[in-house]
């Protein structure tokens, strides 16, 4: 089962990240009457027509597919909010805006299964795309700053899918620096300290000890 790949470089598959995202709660408005559902993962309902209630995303999508409800998109998934986020992402090259940890998967699932419930869905979708793109280029430029001196990397507000994408590269890079830790390979401490603050090395630093 282990296969050949280092399990560390691909901890979660895309399907597994989506599985985790499906447990995020969303609000639905049922159009039918149904008693409470007492699941292993929790109790939901009862469901009454036109009375909003919170359920996990997987349940919301299942009900939606069966024509039993509409899904209320989360507040952040609106043209207004996302426009603000996008601007803020562009204005702060070193930071990520707070978005749900699973914003990529949640929005994708809703685009796939509940597009008629999202006002201005085309606009919303393209805003999400833009945000992903801006954030990803920030990740890339942040990664360029990883060096042998990086001991702890702080990635505040990075989302699950983004983590998954950068994981192989970050882990391999940090590992390589760790392994090849030698004075020649490490930049001079002064230049490192004078660099502007950046995504990738807010953590404390020092030379890794030679072993």
């Amino acid at each position: 089962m282990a296969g050949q790949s280092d399990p560390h470089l691909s901890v979660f598959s895309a399907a597994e990240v989506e599985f985790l995202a499906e447990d995020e709660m969303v609000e639905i408005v049922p159009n039918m009457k149904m008693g409470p559902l007492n699941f292993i993962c929790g109790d939901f309902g009862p469901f009454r027509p036109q009375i909003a209630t919170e359920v996990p995303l997987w349940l919301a999508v299942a009900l939606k597919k069966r024509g039993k409800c509409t899904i209320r998109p989360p507040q952040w998934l609106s043209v207004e909010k996302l426009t603000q986020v996008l601007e803020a992402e562009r204005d702060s090259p070193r930071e990520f805006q707070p978005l749900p940890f699973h914003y990529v998967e949640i929005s994708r699932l809703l685009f796939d299964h509940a597009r008629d419930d999202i006002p201005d869905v085309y606009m919303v979708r393209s805003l999400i795309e833009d945000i992903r793109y801006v954030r990803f280029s920030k990740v890339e430029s942040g990664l360029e700053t990883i060096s042998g001196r990086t001991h702890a990397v702080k990635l505040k507000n990075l989302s699950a899918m983004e983590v998954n994408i950068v994981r192989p590269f970050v882990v391999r890079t940090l590992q390589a620096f760790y392994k090849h830790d030698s004075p020649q390979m490490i930049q001079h401490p002064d230049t490192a300290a004078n660099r502007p603050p950046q995504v990738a090395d807010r953590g404390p630093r020092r030379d890794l000890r030679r072993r």
Partner: protein
Amino acid sequence: MASGSEQGLDTATEDYDSLIATTDVELLKQAWRNEKAAPEILQFQASLIQRSREQIQLMEDTVEEFTENGTDPLTVSLYQMDLDRTQFLLRSYLRIRLQKIEKYMIHISRTNELWNRLSEQEQRFAKRCTDDMEKHLKQSVLSRLPYGYQSILKQSISSEEDDMVPEPQLDTFVFCKSKGSVGAFQLDDSGDEIVDLVGDDLYVLRYKSIKALVERGQIDLV
């Protein structure tokens, strides 16, 4: 508990959150994530697995009953989905552990601390695996090498330590999220490496340095 009050007081929400956060499914998911992301095998979650299996059993019975007494297919399909999700987590959790045992069987068999993290069934599996692997390696390589070079653990009779046993890399880097505020945390023994772990922050750190926090459940690997 759910009195239906619409006030949504902060305290009520917090209570609700912590209640939600401690369902067995939530715990199982956490155990699954940590086991998936940690380079070494973690403590077997015996009572959690026991409880999860009981709940799955109950739910299987319920779904069967539903099918028999003609409950509407919609409801049945939803219960089935809930059941499928929990079963996937359980199976996947157990599989990842097997995967680690397969990968590091010799090391685990020879390290008390690790050996004691396995369930009894896993221990029997590990024992058999190790025997089979040893037999295979002896048969195909070791028995054909000259005297002094036949050990499975050492490169040669003159090696001082067991220098042939594959071990997990504990100083690999992992992605983690602190649940609450952990506070200033020492990254190494010498104490000149401190990081302030604030709630919900995302970090990439060396596994070795946060191992204890993972074991205590203060930090989640993601």
